[in-house]
């Protein structure tokens, strides 16, 4: 068992365990804290996969911006004491949810193990590389080159989407002012 294997098991347990604790925690603030643990574990797994830039981005965007936003909203709405008094779920919903997610997990694992199940595709006939694909690289400059050449239109669309979501959030938070003039 090499040290990389050891790190993989540590961070795998950290990310999945953080997710499970998040789902079953009563208080929203502790749920957000477990979520941060899970996201940092996923960032460490990105490092093990040699996607260093994405690991940094994961910590900055998710563990930094998104979870701080979540914590601010939890404190703004003050849902802590109310939510911790009640049960987190109904019994019937819990049974349905556990059955559904076990079905999903087992189906996906079946697909991964059998390579698509009963399909009679000849896999060797499929092209291994998409046309004009970019080589995997740990370098950020390769990433930027790909974004600015092949993915020029998607990056502009995502910038426009960010602008649209920003305007949407501003309008939504203006609408919900106390004197309802809308």
């Amino acid at each position, binding site marked *: 068992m090499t040290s990389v294997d050891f790190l*993989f098991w540590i961070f795998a347990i950290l990310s*999945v365990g953080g997710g499970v604790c998040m*789902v079953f925690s009563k208080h929203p603030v502790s749920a957000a804290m477990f979520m941060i643990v899970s996201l940092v574990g996923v960032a460490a797994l990105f490092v093990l*996969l040699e996607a260093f830039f994405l690991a940094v981005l994961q910590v900055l965007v998710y563990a930094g911006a998104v979870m701080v936003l*979540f914590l601010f909203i939890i404190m703004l709405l003050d849902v802590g004491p109310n939510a911790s008094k009640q049960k987190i779920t109904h019994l019937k919903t819990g049974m349905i949810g556990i059955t559904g*997610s076990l079905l999903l997990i087992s189906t996906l694992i079946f697909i991964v193990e059998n390579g698509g199940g009963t399909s009679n595709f000849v896999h060797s006939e499929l092209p*291994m590389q998409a046309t004009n694909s970019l080589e*995997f690289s740990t370098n950020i400059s390769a990433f930027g080159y790909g974004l600015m050449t092949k993915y020029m239109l998607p990056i502009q669309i995502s910038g426009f989407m960010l602008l649209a*979501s920003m305007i949407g959030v501003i309008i939504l938070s203006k609408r919900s002012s106390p004197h309802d003039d809308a």
Partner: protein
Amino acid sequence: MLTITPYHFLILSILLVGVGFLGLLIRRNILLMLMSLELMLNGINIALITFSRVGNNLDGSIFVFFIMTVAAAEVAVGLALLVALFKKRKSVLSDDMALLKN
């Protein structure tokens, strides 16, 4: 003990998606449902980076970049909607959003 293969990373990503799906189904608090969505997106990101690494193809990693962008925008809009809803209904539980039920 066998060494780590891409298979392990795929199983891990499936487990993360499954846990996120479980949270999305059973939780009544809409904030927690949004967090479970984030967990599912993270599981998908791990699978994409694994395939990108194994296939020696950067396109998967760039996809992860776009997924992160969309997830950040989605959380911002979702939380703004949730705050607007809370000011109207005084609740963040999905049980109380039953206008279409009867």
